[in-house]
């Protein structure tokens, strides 16, 4: 189980502290797929970073009783001067996994061929995204955190990612944040809406979408 209890997050700006997340409570149990809808700037990425533990909340408690991934599918978290392979080795060492056994999978999945042995700074953005996704499938987690994964590669690679994530890892818990209601509808069993830093839980998926659409309509 993952439990967030009254999470608040302030960022310090020149104009004083800005409250990004307010009294967030969230529970995710094993195998559950929770979608969090929110417009740009609603605090989705901050929330997922707090769940992952890479950022700490200003106040409140995060409890993790299962292994939780890092926020998947950010494109730029590589050291550009290192090769794709060396970047993979770093991640493997951080998680205590033997790199040798995982190289083959990344080679096959990323379809990068000989480029895997070239510095990442020579990659196109599509190649980076493929490497990022392949590497994030190398470490096994009980809960995956997914931050706007929709834009990975071309349509065929996108389908391949979806299969790897939602079919091959269909029994894992997931928290997916997105501004794309269709994506959440396709992959989640439960959804909540993040509005100006507050998380609104909805009884059903449809309730969540109705609330989200209503809010985006007002804003538009």
């Amino acid at each position, binding site marked *: 189980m993952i439990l967030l209890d009254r999470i608040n997050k302030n960022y*310090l700006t020149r104009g004083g502290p800005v409250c990004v997340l307010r009294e967030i409570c969230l529970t995710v149990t094993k195998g559950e797929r929770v979608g969090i809808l929110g417009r740009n700037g609603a605090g989705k990425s901050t929330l997922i970073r707090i769940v992952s533990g*890479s950022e*700490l909340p200003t106040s409140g408690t*995060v409890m*993790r*009783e299962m292994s939780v991934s890092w926020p998947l599918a950010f494109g*730029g978290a590589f050291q550009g001067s290192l090769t794709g392979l060396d970047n993979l080795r770093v991640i493997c060492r*951080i998680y205590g996994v033997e790199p040798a056994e995982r190289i083959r999978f990344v080679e096959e999945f990323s379809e990068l061929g000989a480029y895997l042995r070239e510095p990442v700074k020579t990659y196109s953005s599509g190649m980076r995204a493929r490497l990022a996704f392949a590497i994030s499938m190398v470490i096994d987690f009980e809960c995956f955190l997914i931050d706007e994964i929709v834009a990975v590669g071309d349509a065929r690679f996108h389908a391949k990612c979806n299969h790897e994530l939602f079919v091959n890892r269909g029994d894992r818990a997931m928290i997916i944040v997105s501004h794309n209601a269709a994506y959440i509808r396709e992959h989640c069993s439960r959804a909540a809406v993040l509005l100006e830093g507050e998380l609104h839980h909805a009884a059903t998926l449809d309730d969540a979408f109705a609330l989200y659409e209503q809010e985006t309509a007002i804003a538009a």
Partner: protein
Amino acid sequence: MSARPTMIQNENIIESWRIWRRIVWALLLREILTRYGRHNIGFLWLFVEPMLFTVGVTALWTATKSVHGSSLPIVAFAVTGYSSVLLWRNMPARCVLALDPNLGLLYHRNVRPIDIYLSRLILEASGAGISFVVLVLFFHFVGWLALPEDVLEVIGAWLMLAWMGTAVALLIGALSEFSETVEKLWHPFSYLLFPLSGAAFLVNALPVQAQHIVLLLPMVHGVEMLREGYFGSQMVAHYDFAYMAICNAVFTLLGLAQVRKVSLTLELE
């Protein structure tokens, strides 16, 4: 809003220690790769680089007879002096703005800012230490340098300087995350500190008044102790072990406090 943020995880101390070692090792290997690459002599640069500095300074001081009129062993003087500078000056320099090129790694929960600092510091201290030992052995082999008179004292003094380097590095490194002015100021500051640091003079050679002023700087005590261990029979050393230890402890506390502040307020993109 009052409760401190807490992270409840099912990990005991031993497990945490195991994870910490794993993380620092991973960062260390990555740092070696990014800094030195796999080309030419690769990670040997780790100590060849500081060695070149020390050799250059030794040659320069020998040529200009900087310690003219005394019977001091000039090579021992230069090697001990510059090896100490490598610790108190380069270690902080490596930690200034160290987080920015590593932001991507901070997405991984177990990688904390202190790990990035410590991996860099271990690397920097290892480079300085290996180059010190290699230089001593090399100069000894060619007959320019006697071996230390008191090896334990040399090791103790070197560790004190490395401790000071680590503590100041944590403080300066963390402060540089809050204000870029720190980066701008550290370089001229450390440059100006060099002639006062004891690397290029013996405290005993100064007027008494100047000795009091110079001995306010903690690294001067370290260098004096290092030299006493190396060639103490040929000099009069002035140092206060307790004074340096207290300074180091204060720097350590301030440094750790600032690193903690960085960790708590860390913002990723």
